[in-house]
Structure formats: C-alpha cells, structure tokens
C-alpha cells in the first residue's frame, strides 16, 4: 500500500547573489511516499531539463544526513516538517496529496544566496579557522590512553561534536545568531583535557570572529535547538557563555 501523491512545488529561483529572486510553481505527479525530498527535486529537475530549461540549483552530497550540505527551508522549517533530520532524510510520505510545498534557501545575512537554493556558508569555516581546534601538530603526541577521560565527559563531548555545520540554527534564528554552532565546538573541546588548555582563548577568538562576520546575538529563543537536525542542545550555549565570561574577566 505504497502512498502516491500529486503535489505543487513552489520553489525560490534566484540567478545570482545580486539578482532579484522570486517563487516559481511546478506541478509534479505520481510521487511515491518512499521518495526522499531531494529525490523529488531530482525528478522535478529532470522534468525541467526535459523542457530545455535550467534545473533548480540546490546543495546536496551524502544524502544520508551527515555531510551537512543540504540546506532547504521547507514549508517554513529548516530541513522540513520532521524532527531530527536533514532535508535529504525527509521523505515524501510526510506530505499530503494535493499539497503545495514551499521550498526556500537559508535566509540569513551571513549566508548569501549563490543561486536558487544554494547559499554561501564559508562564514562557518572562518569561525573554525579562528580557533576551533587544539594546537597540536602531527606526531609527537602522547599515547591515546595516557589521559583517562570520564565516559560522561567523553559522551557529552560527542553529543556536542555531532554538529554537522549545516546552518539550520542560523537560518531559523530571528537574530541570525551562530551561537549554537560556535558553542557546540567550544563545548566539545572544553570538555576534554586535550582541549581544555586553550579553552578560554578559543572561546574569545571564535566569538570575536562570529561577531565580525555579521551573525546576530543570542536571545535564548531556543529555535536553534528545536530545528537542529542532530539535537545539539542549547546547554552548549550556556557553557560557551561561562567560558567567554571567565576569559573576559581574567583579561
């Protein structure tokens, strides 16, 4: 009893960063419920190409929810109406027959549109480059078991480290804040003895870079946590704030 639906896709088209964009509607029939959302866009693109037109540009790569490349605002939600998934893990069984589905790119000052649904997220790389690492070179490090780490800390660090850098947190935030992204990396490293040594300097450097790149402030609306495909918790933001304030006070 496979579900088959007919839909209308209302999709954002924009030729380039400076061009004026607008919505375009396409009818699409006979979509099976087992089709993933991006496969639905593939089918739509085949239809568009067969008419001799340029297909809709959208970022995607692994299609299994881990690369963080896909970045669609579907019916008003980053990554669509289901929880704890990326757009590529969304399936058409979540939509109704006859439904109009609205698809937009991430909209945020720090993520300018490149074309259609594709945005530029290099700002995230720049924040990591500012301090999202431990300063160790290859080789000459101690044995992996030389420093025991409590399972609780290791597990918590893993939860923070599960961020995929997709930018849904920024896209959904009314302030366009990158605090969830920044705090996840700061927390992961601050929780581990290897990262603790540079914890304060890291927090300061990453926050400064975030401010410089035009991301907004955090006002604790928790929208980021709600929409994060990996369930990264805002308790990370609290930890970042502690790190940041201690760093500022010790200056």
């Amino acid at each position, binding site marked *: 009893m496979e579900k088959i639906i007919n839909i209308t896709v209302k999709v954002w088209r924009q030729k380039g960063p400076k061009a004026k964009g607008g919505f375009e509607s396409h009818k699409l029939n006979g979509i099976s419920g087992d089709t993933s959302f991006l496969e639905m866009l593939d089918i739509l693109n085949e239809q568009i*190409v067969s008419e001799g037109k340029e297909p809709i540009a959208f970022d995607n790569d*692994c299609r299994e929810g881990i690369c963080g490349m896909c970045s669609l605002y579907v019916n008003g939600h980053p990554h669509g109406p289901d929880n704890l998934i990326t757009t590529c893990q969304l399936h058409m069984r979540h939509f109704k027959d006859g439904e109009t589905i609205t698809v937009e790119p991430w909209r945020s000052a720090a993520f300018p549109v490149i074309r259609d649904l594709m945005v530029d997220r290099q700002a995230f790389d720049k924040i990591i480059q500012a301090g999202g690492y431990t300063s160790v070179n*290859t080789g000459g490090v101690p044995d992996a078991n030389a420093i025991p780490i409590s399972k609780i800390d290791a597990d918590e660090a*893993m939860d923070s480290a599960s961020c995929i850098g997709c930018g849904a947190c920024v896209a959904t935030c009314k302030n366009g804040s990158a605090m969830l992204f920044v705090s996840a990396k700061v927390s992961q490293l601050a929780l581990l003895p*290897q990262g603790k040594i540079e914890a304060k300097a890291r927090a300061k450097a990453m926050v400064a870079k975030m401010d410089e790149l035009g991301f907004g402030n955090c006002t604790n609306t928790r929208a980021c946590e709600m929409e994060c495909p990996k369930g990264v918790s805002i308790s990370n933001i609290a930890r970042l704030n502690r790190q940041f304030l201690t760093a500022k006070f010790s200056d």
Partner: protein
Amino acid sequence: MTKLEAKIPQGPLAEKWTNYKDHQKLVNPANKRRLDIIVVGTGLAGASAAASLGELGFNVLNFCIQDSPRRAHSIAAQGGINAAKNYQNDGDSVYRLFYDTIKGGDYRAREANVYRLAEVSNSIIDQCVAQGVPFAREYGGLLDNRSFGGAQVSRTFYAKGQTGQQLLLGAYSALSRQVHKGSVKLYTRYEMLDLVIIDGRARGIIARNLVTGKVERFSAHAVVIGSGGYGNTFFLSTNAMNSNGSAAMQCYRKGALFANPAFAQIHPTCIPVHGEFQSKLTLMSESLRNDGRIWVPKKIEDAQAIREGKLKPTQIAEEDRDYYLERRYPAFGNLVPRDVASRAAKERCDAGFGVNNTGLAVYLDFSSAIARLGLKTVEARYGNLFQMYEKITAQNPYETPMMIFPAIHYTMGGLWVDYELQTTIQGCFAIGEANFSDHGANRLGASALMQGLADGYFVLPYTIQNYLADQISVPRFSVDLPEFAEAEKAVENRIATLMSIKGKRSVDSLHKELGHIMWDYVGMARTKESLETALTKLKALKKEFWSNVFIPGEPNNLNVELEKALRVADFIEIGELMALDGLNRNESCGGHFREEYQTPEGEALRDDEHYAYASCWQYEGDNKTPELVKEPLVYEFTVRAQRNYKS
C-alpha cells in the same frame, strides 16, 4: 613498455619503513617555504595531508568540490577505525593487523605497504585523541573497542556510529589551523579538470570555479590526488552524489597507470533499492554485524509468502530460519569479510530465498541481541543507525528485522603508486581511496579510515620530501607557461564540445543506464560473457553520450548539469577499464568474483600462478585499448593460502 619500480625498501618486513625514513632525503625548513604543493580533496587523506604538510612549512593549495572541506565523503563513514593497540589484551599486534589485512585482501596487496599501514595505525589513534576526537570510552576512562569483519580481535575504535565524521572533523580542525596560519590556502567549490605536466613532471592543475564557471590555472612543485574512489560508476552506490573518479582519470590520460580497476567492494549491509527514481543507497554500518544476525527463511514457501506480504518475519519460527553465515562460516559467523557476506546474500536471493517485495533482501535481526543485552544497551550501541533506518524505511528495527542487500561501497583499485605513494608521473602522488595500494582485492571494515589517515598524516609527509629534496632550486612556476595554456585550452574544448551536443538525453538518464550495465554485467558475479557484453554496451553508451547528451545553461556560470556531464563522461571510461580488467583476470579474488572460477563450496578460487600481480593499465589514446602492465606481487613473508573463515 613501462617497467614498474615499486621502490620497496630493503630489509626485514618490520624494519622497512624505519629503514626508509632513516635514509630518505629531507627538505630543510627554509626551503620548505619555497615549495608549493597542490592537494586535491579534503577527505581524511587530503585534509590530513594538507594539514601535516602545512605544519611542516610547505606552501599548500587545497581544493575541494564541496562548499567546505568538512563535507568530503569520509564524513559518512560510520563504524570505526582499526589500530593494533591491543588495549583489549586479546592477542592483537602490528603483525596480526598486517596479516588480517593481507588475507582480507585475498593476497593481492603489497606486503611492505600493508605492514607500514599496520605499523602507523597506532599513531593515528594517538593523533586523533590529541585533536579532541571524542572516541567511545569505558567507565574507567579508557578507550573502548568493537569487532569488525575479518578479524578475531577487537581493534576497532569508534565514535558512536559517526567515526568518519569525528575523524574528518579532527583533520578539518588541523587543516583550519593551518589556513589560519596562512600555510594552506583553501579553494572550495573548485573542481580539478586536468593535470599539467612540464618536462615530464606534474607541475599544476586546471580547475573550474564551480560558482563562476571560470576555468583557472594553478601551479606547484608537486600535485597530490586525494579525490576518493570511483564507486559512482554504478550510479547507485553508498558514495555521495558528487563523489567521482575524474581526477584519477585525468592523471590516467596524462600517463599515470590505473591499477586493479576491477576491484570494487560491494558492502553487504545496505538498505535495499526501493524504486527507479532512487538516487543513492544508504549503508548500515558493519558494526551492526557485531550483534545482528543475518538470515533468510529456510523454507522457500515462507520466503514466497513474505514477498507477497502474507507473512511477517517475526512469524517465522526460530527453527525455520536459515542463519546462513553462521551455518557456512562457523569460525567467523556474521563477521566474515564483506565480499564473502555479500556473495552469500546474493547466493540465497538467487536461490529464491530473498525477502522484501523484490526478493532482493535478507534480514539483519537484533531480536536475540535485545533479549541478551536488553533494549537499552542495543540502543546505546546502534541507536543512531536504527533511527536512520527508520527514517528511510518507516520500519522500526527494534520490533522487526532490518532488511539489507549488498551495494557498491568502495573501490580498492585506483592510481598505481609506488611505496612512496608516487604515481608513474613524477611529482604526482595519490593518497587514500584514490590510490590502489593497501587493500588488495577486498578491504576490511574500518580500514579505509585507517589508510586515509595513515597516508595523509604519517606516510606522504615523509615520502614527498624524498621527491621535493631535488626540487629546492626549482623556482615557482608561472601559470603563463605554454603547458598551462595548452591544458586549459583542452579543458575548454571538452566543455565546449559537451555543451554543443544539445541532444535529447539528460545526464542522469545516461548515468543510470551506465549503472545498470555495470551492476548487471560487472557486478557481484562476473563471467567472460558478461564482461564482453558490458564492453559492447559501454561502447554504445559512450557513443550515445557524446552524441545525445543535453546540458542546459551556460558553461561560464554555475552549471550543475555540466559538472555531472564531465564526471559521467569519465565514469563511462572507468566502466570500460573495470570490465577490461575483470576480463583479463581469469580468477576470483576478493571483490572480483568470476563465476567460472570457484571452489565446489562456491568460494573464490584464486590463481596465484598466473595472476599474482597488480594489473596496471596504461592509456594509449582515445578509443584505443589500454596496455596492460604487470607489477608482480612477490610474497616474501607470508604464505598465500585459500582464505578460510570456516574454522
């Protein structure tokens, strides 16, 4: 005829790498600054190499096709990374890891390379922990391990079901630190389109800016290819949508040999195909075979009823289930290597015992693990994988067995490299999945991450210096040299030709057709006839592609269809190489199974007398049959045997 010199160092197996390092040439710090290295790719191999070379003081240019280096497909590796730490005191050692890898690869890899891989494996774990990679730990605070196929010890380190992600983010962090320092310059959303050769040495690349469509020139003293494997030749695979084999093919067409193209790995535990519109296949980690048990119904009428939807797997009584891996391979059971598990699944499905409405699936069942360990423990171990499965299939694996089927996952073949990871083109190196070196005819689980990071962190940063030491007085190259202009012109012409075809077929439709040919005739079981059929069909497909492909839009702008077309053109040629190599190799080994060559029990039958070599293919020109060059695989330290996972 090309003679291949593998440059394997002298001495006993365990001393070769030390000997090499003791006697190789180095580059002093002042000279390193004057040397440019291009690294193509930012996966585990590319990112770790770029970071390590930057740390050493070289000037590195690092390219990736994604919008960020963190998105390279290494990110999707789930299960873990092997190392010979022997933290579990279960009898592991460098030698044992070496032996398992050589045996797992069905004795078609180089002994010296594999031993070095096992030797540096321990340093990788140390390095990752120092970077802040949150590996799983025991309550005492020490690192935890799990088991993977083809081994009888627990030597796999893991970070939930996201080990590849965590290792890549570690390498990405190290890379980002070098970008911050200015020793590495990143070029994201750039795709390499050709290798530039000056006086017989690799001196740069031509790359297309994927946002502007502009074709640009980049020069360097050496070029490192870390662009991954060519599994997407099959269209449907576990690879990411943009993973491709084009960088390797560009090197091949410029004179680098392509080794063992037929060796592709088919992973036994993937979510089955559900329809014609499907774009990719999703892997379910091999780690699931630690606790999951694979079975099909024992009675053919039960299988029939399940396919028709009249019976559920949970209604099949214990005694009516055929746990065929446990039955056939008592010593390794569900943890036999991937090639063995995949073929066994195919055998059962071909015999009519397959499930799912297609008959092309087997069960991976956790009910006995849940009964033995409790739901909580199973959830802690595999929760994220179960969630992933449920999101895709809308079935709950805690209540009903998962359905799985083999799919293309990894390619062991790739650019031929010597012990120094240098291709047959001087100054052109290949690392990670892009080279052919360490996995022979079959890769063991959790060894891809190990090899990628071994090459990038601990092997290439040494061996590339042995080459660059001669280059210290060579000044930087201008991209205005005629060799660059010529290469750029060739790229522009290729693009213009593709754009001008203006045919009737979309790129995807041609790629899908290629995938069907590959899966049907160059897939899990091959015959002389099937491979010959494939070659005929591929020739026709190539003609169809170059006369009937349609690419909308402009070349000098963002154009995803053009990107795909350039890759598919190369995939068709890779397909031909795979079929040709498979046809030449009249034996079965690892992932290459020729139906004519099997034991009475249906196991792979090697022919060491005639095929104990790496088959390397030399480009002879468009539409000409490439020349076969053999690198004999001399085994000095291990005895080749029929792989035995039964006792």
